């Protein structure tokens, strides 16, 4: 029963949701709307599970003083501190002067922005070390990347006598080889997703239930 009921539910809900594309009836749409609302509520509930899971995974590391336990303490303090600030602030937590807003503006924003900003430095270093014309494929990629980079910024596009050709080449690279490759990947991934979806609906794929 523990396995059969979820499989039957998955089959019924999956079939109803697929049916939405083929049955343009108001009543049917209302039913799928309701199901989607349930889905959003369940997804929101998963947040609580996430918090519980985070504590379950990290608390033993702190208790047993395992390597790098101090970082787990920082994480737990941030988790609890932000939660408390959010609850105290209530509906006005995003107003200026509220603790939650302060934490967001003066802790999260600089940390988040710093992490992303480091990318520019690592890309420069990686491009210098790894972008070598070692063979034909690497040379094609290198030339294409350099051309697109140069044409994507104003200084490249405005080189007298060359800029307009650079932009035309960049547009061609983006619209033809890039699109062809991207579409191939998208279509391949979509076919894979359809196959997996069918396997889940038909009960052939059971890993989401846990166990085998």
């Amino acid at each position, binding site marked *: 029963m523990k396995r059969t009921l979820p499989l039957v539910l998955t089959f019924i809900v999956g079939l109803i949701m697929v049916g939405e594309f083929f049955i343009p009836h108001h009543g049917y749409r209302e039913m*799928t709307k309701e199901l989607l609302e349930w*889905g*959003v509520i369940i997804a929101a509930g998963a947040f609580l599970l996430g918090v519980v899971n985070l504590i379950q995974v990290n608390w033993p590391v702190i208790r047993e003083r395992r390597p790098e336990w101090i970082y787990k303490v920082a994480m737990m303090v941030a988790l609890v501190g932000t939660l408390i600030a959010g609850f105290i602030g209530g509906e006005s937590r995003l107003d200026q002067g509220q603790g939650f*807003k302060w934490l967001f503006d003066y802790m999260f924003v600089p940390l988040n922005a710093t992490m992303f900003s480091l990318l520019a430095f690592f890309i420069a270093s990686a491009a210098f070390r790894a972008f070598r014309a070692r063979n034909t494929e690497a040379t094609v990629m290198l030339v294409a990347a350099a051309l697109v980079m140069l044409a994507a*910024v104003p200084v490249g596009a405005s080189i007298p006598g060359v800029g307009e050709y650079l932009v035309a080449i960049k547009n061609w690279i983006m619209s033809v080889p890039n699109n062809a490759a*991207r579409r191939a990947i998208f279509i391949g991934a979509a076919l894979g997703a359809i196959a997996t979806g069918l396997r889940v609906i038909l009960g052939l794929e059971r890993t989401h239930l846990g166990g085998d």
Partner: protein
Amino acid sequence: MLKALVRFQSMDRRWVFLGMAFSIVIPMLMPWSCSFQVDRPVRALYEQVDALEAGDTVFVSADFDPASRPELEPFYRANLHHLFQKDVNVVMGTLWPTAPPLVLPIFEEIAESYGKEYGEDWAFLGYTEGRELAIKSIGASVRKSFPKDSRGNNTAELPIMAGLDGASDFDMIISVSAGFPGTQAYVLQIQGQYNLNMISACTAVSAPDYIAYFDAGQLTGLSGGMPGSAQYESLVFADGPPEGARLMATPNMNVLNLGHLYIILLIIMGNIAYFITRAAGVES
């Protein structure tokens, strides 16, 4: 000479970092003007928004965080100015939990600068969890996806929502997207199903992915990264920004100029050194 080239190829990466730091900081400290052209997808985006009429209502999905702020906030601001200048009603929601503290103050500031009434002309519905499921739900019913707005009002009772429920009831869907969930999930989940008029502003790294959607007509306009934002600013603020507003992406185009040139220079110099040392049979 060969030794120097070998050493150059394996130089401490902190020198590379230092060069990049100069490339970013110098244009910020000593700004100079640079001209640029407007790309086809950005012009199409501008024309789509410009074709909206007073009283039309758009749904903006503001899905970005502080990390992508320099790329997307300039577009987000210019877009809100553009919409309010045309007296278009704006309903906004987000699928990113980190977005509300970032996007709401800007939304409030710009709406108030145009004297817009909350609930009548604009509304912020807050954050909803569910990722692709939430997008699917927005396609079916915005009211059910966001039962309450950020001020605790029932979404269905807001005057701006009169006669509007599913995504297809809106005149346009605007996705300001820094990744997943965002533009791609909107296109895959609901754009085709409901034949939505949808435009997107995305990070530069996502633009090569989304250009396929623009070429296919699934997106009717696309702005990629800071260059896209700067181009859009140049169209919206052709006569200069309104009082209290300022250009955000345009002055930073020189940072991109110098940063990109620096990377290209590194690649060229690295390859020259590589070919010379390889021809001489020296291992780098």
